[in-house]
């Protein structure tokens, strides 16, 4: 008996040592310059598909992914920056303002992508620090079992009382959306206060909100268009309208991190994202491409045909901290 127990115990120790040795070996290989780490707020399934496609095109490269909301990413990057141990090689966030924040912190490196000429020039940072990689739009999602809304103001409509959601401003797209509406006279912060008074609640991010609209926990909410489209195509009772005031357009930027240990791999990943092949993956996911040589998906109305509620990027960058603080104050009371 005792002998057996000894064996079991020694066996456990052996297993552990093997695992430890095996993974310390793994850790060594990640230091090489053909491995990059991408910090992104792109949904898990999309980034998984993307890195798999990149890996297939470049079998000798490895892409590691840290996925979190834009706000969480910025906070982690800032912490790493202060400790002088930045792990990211590429950042791929949801909104221009997040990229601007990193640029101001001197954490980005300008880079001329090989795909530059094919991309809508409005979506490229004039100094070349970041590139819009996909166009995503904040639209008004609703559960198809309730009355169809028509305007952003429907978020304050008593018909939906208690069933109104909004992604937290920790999400870059939501930040852009909130900032855009707050800067307009017809909305302003009073609008968000009314949303809150109508029982509006904040949720962690867009996909969470979209799921809840699909299950009926929420009736209406501002959400990213492509998430609604893919859920609708799967048969979920969800759809969206482009509100009469217009949708809020967000161009998710990708950028090279300063002092990357694998700059060449990082650049090739960025180029791949912007390439025809990469953009076709986007298009298949019902996301609008930034390339002029790619036709939109049939499920997505062309960006030229819809009304857009213009975003004032200067307002966003000047009022960065205030937008977060006021939103938090309204939705945590």
């Amino acid at each position, binding site marked *: 008996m005792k002998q057996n127990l000894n064996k*079991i115990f020694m066996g456990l120790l052996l297993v552990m040592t093997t695992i430890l040795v095996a993974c310390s070996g793994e850790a060594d290989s990640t230091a090489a310059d053909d491995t990059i780490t991408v910090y992104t707020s792109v949904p898990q399934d999309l980034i998984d598909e993307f890195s798999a496609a990149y890996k297939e095109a470049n079998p000798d490269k490895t892409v590691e992914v840290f996925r979190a909301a834009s706000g969480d990413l910025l906070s982690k990057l800032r912490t790493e920056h202060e400790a002088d*141990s930045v792990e990211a090689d590429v950042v791929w966030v949801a909104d221009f303002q997040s990229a601007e924040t990193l640029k101001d912190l001197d954490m980005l490196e300008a880079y001329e992508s090989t795909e530059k000429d094919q991309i809508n020039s409005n979506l490229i940072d004039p100094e070349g620090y970041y590139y819009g990689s996909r166009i995503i739009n904040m639209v008004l999602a609703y559960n198809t079992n309730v009355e169809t809304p028509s305007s952003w103001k429907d978020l304050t409509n008593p018909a939906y009382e208690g069933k109104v959601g909004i992604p937290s401003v920790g999400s870059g797209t939501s930040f852009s959306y909130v900032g855009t509406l707050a800067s307009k006279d017809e909305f302003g912060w009073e609008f968000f206060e009314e949303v809150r008074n109508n029982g509006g609640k904040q949720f962690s991010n867009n996909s969470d909100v979209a799921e809840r609209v*699909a299950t009926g926990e929420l009736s209406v909410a501002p959400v990213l268009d492509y998430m609604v489209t893919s859920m609708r195509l799967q048969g979920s009772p969800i759809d969206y309208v482009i509100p009469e005031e217009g949708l809020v357009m967000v161009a998710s930027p990708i950028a090279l991190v300063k002092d990357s240990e694998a700059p060449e791999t990082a650049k090739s990943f960025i180029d791949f994202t912007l390439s025809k092949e990469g953009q076709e993956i986007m298009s298949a996911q019902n996301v609008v491409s930034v390339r002029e040589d790619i036709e939109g998906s049939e499920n997505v109305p062309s960006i030229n045909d819809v009304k857009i509620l213009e975003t004032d990027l200067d307002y966003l960058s000047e009022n960065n901290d205030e937008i977060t603080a006021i939103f938090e104050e309204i939705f945590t009371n």
Partner: protein
Amino acid sequence: MKRLSKRENWVYLVALILIAVLIIYPMIIIVQQSFLSEDQFSLQNYVNVFQNPTTYDILWNSLFVSTLSTLFALIIGSSLAWLVTRTDIKGKRWINFGVIIPFLIPSFISALSWRQLLGPVGYLNKIIMYFTNTMEPLFSIDGPAGIIFVMTVSSFSLVFMMTSTAFLNMDTSYEEAAQISGATPLQVMRDVTFPLIRPSLFSSAVLVFVANISNFGVPSILGFHESYFVLTTKIYDLLNDYTIQDSFAQASSLSMILVVIAVFGLWLQYYLTNKKSYKVISGKSTQKMTISLGKYRPLLTGIVCLLLFFISIAPILGIFVTSLTKAYGLTPTLDNLSLDNYFHILFQMPMAKRSLVNSLILATSAATIAVILGTIVSYFITKTDFKGRQVVSYIVSLPYALPGTVVALAIILAWIKPLPLINTSIYNTLWIILVAYVMYYLTLAVQSVSSTLVQMDRSLEEATRVSGANWFQNMRDVVLPLSKPGIINGWFLIFIPALSELTISILLWSSGNETISVAVFNLQEQGNMTAASALSMVLISLIVIGNQLLKYLTRRLERN
């Protein structure tokens, strides 16, 4: 004091240095950080924290949910313990089984499961809405009431176990005496039974309260949408808010409130266990007076079984059903059920696969390292007569008494800078999580091994020494074999909770270094409830396997 060979002193010295590096250093750093403002010593952070009116709201929320859930856990846990140990209630085996399940399930999984049943679109709510033909859900698990409910469910088992022991060790002749002198059953309860189990009630109350005020998963999953913040979730939120310049300093100051509460709890715990309790444990009379429930027996049996089914089986069923549905929100009819989610997380989603490997590596290595270090420390505490060795035991138990959020913060602050000599930082690697786990769980190994070491008679070791064995031979041939039950028990006591640890991991994880609980948490945050449920079921299975293995090994050891 016996002559000590130099070599064994070196072993103790290394162990003590490790403890200093692992535990004392991070604790000093976090206290220091809370006093730093713009690299200068100041009280500014505390002024900021205590001038902010929301601090008081959050503190109040923390105290409110922890106090009420502790109270409910005490009532449910001790009543059940009384029914099982002292009355003729039926189905005691099943009741014991039903009580142990919520204890095994990590509280954040419990919160997720309850959301499947009583969330706005939970199954129970949907059934009720169907039958009553209403549009509005009857219950909502979100918000303070739900947090209190789930915390109660997750912590009443501990009260049950601690008070059961007290009930079993109690000499019932006192009760009999009171009854014979004409006291009514209620008077016996109030004047005899209750005072006898009071120490264990107090003791479990402290443990449950500190555990609940340190809980992160439950208030985070059930409180965020209602904007209901407690101290742990607020600290997490602060650390993730890039718009606040000195978020680390503010978080450190805020976490000092939790440190004060935890240290006070630890002190209270020491005080209560060392205070002379009612020693009415007698060796002879083991014949327990069993109280007959009479005509209430079937009724009480029914209520207890229904209650336990509801709080321990139903939530697992809820999360199990969700893990089988094709898309979240679909009615779980046969057509909509499949094993796709399991296939997806086990074979397709790299993040989920990785998290399983990572958690297994972390739990195995943390348990092994903690047990090795813990055995040396236990020996040092129980078998040597160095001055101040009790202080070591106090220091080792400190991190476990602290909320995981504080431990993680201390670890980040202490280890983010590149290490000297090798010039790389363990921040952003799996190893920082390992360091945190060892720091946090070390005390469990020390307690477990110590409990077997104190039972070991000194004469055995003296005999070995007299026959010329040195310290290492003595360790190998006498101490280790004899303390094996404690070592194995300690290993599993660390392995099992480390497998599902969330609070520390959620602050320390980095790309490729997700743990299972981080993966579950992130999946549910992205609204991918079906995958989160499937991964939760895998985690629950692993925990059950771990427990069965521990039971099996313990039984084998006892038989020897």
